[in-house]
């Protein structure tokens, strides 16, 4: 189990190298989708089901769809793939070699635990007579409405104002 999560994080870095070596943006979007899936796998493997769902729904399903449409609008006729340029090959090879060195170093002489797991759910005792299971991540996010209500107001206001900012930017002359 820790090794699967570490493998997901290694593939996360490989996906990042894939879009940081800057092929055409449509392939960069593909690399970001793969990295998002691997990152979700890391978070879900550590027990955070709600946060993994947030990655897929909001990040991949919301933001990257918008990126995909904008890329389709502003792209060129012959997009360059990963194997087309010496620069892209060089950065890919450098990134993969770097990640392979990190993985080998961690597997051989990283004496600590790969991932520190101490239980997937948290017991919380409410009162003397009973105890319950809690999902710690969704409970923490739900506390935005309780302890973090001012943060929620500021974030909601920021989202609202950013609509007007985007309208003003794209107004043109």
């Amino acid at each position, binding site marked *: 189990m820790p090794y699967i999560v570490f493998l997901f994080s290694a593939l996360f870095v490989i996906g990042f190298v894939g879009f940081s070596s800057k092929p055409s943006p449509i392939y960069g979007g593909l690399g970001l989708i793969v990295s998002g899936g691997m990152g979700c796998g890391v978070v879900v493997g550590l027990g955070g089901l709600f946060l993994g769902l947030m990655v897929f729904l909001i990040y991949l399903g919301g933001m990257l769809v918008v990126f995909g449409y904008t890329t389709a609008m502003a792209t060129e006729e012959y997009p360059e793939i990963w194997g087309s340029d010496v620069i892209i090959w060089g950065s890919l090879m450098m990134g993969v070699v770097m990640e392979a060195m990190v993985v080998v170093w961690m597997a051989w002489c990283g004496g600590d635990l790969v991932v520190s797991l101490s239980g997937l759910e948290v017991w919380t005792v409410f009162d003397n007579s009973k105890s319950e299971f809690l999902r710690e991540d969704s409970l923490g996010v739900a506390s935005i409405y309780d302890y973090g209500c001012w943060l929620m107001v500021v974030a909601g206001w920021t989202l609202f104002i950013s609509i007007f900012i985007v309208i003003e*930017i794209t107004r043109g002359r």
Partner: protein
Amino acid sequence: MPSIYVNIMLAFATSLLGLLLFRSHLMSALLCLEGMMLSLFVLSSILVLNNHLILTAMLPIILLVFAACEAAVGLALLVMVSNTYGLDYVQNLNLLQC
């Protein structure tokens, strides 16, 4: 220290490097910025889940909110550049040349 943090921070550094080194498209730089936000989300989620900091679980969600705002503004700027010049090449942004 668990060695998964090394991988996530390496992903952040990789996409920071990709943001700072321009090639031809402005869109690739915006994608690297989104990659940085994704790696910060995963890093803070792992911190919350490993150390059982339950109330800190607000942090990845609020990070996603502000990353969405930033992506929207970046895409609006890219759309305006693309409307003026046809493509989003960074060599088109040359009004302030020496």
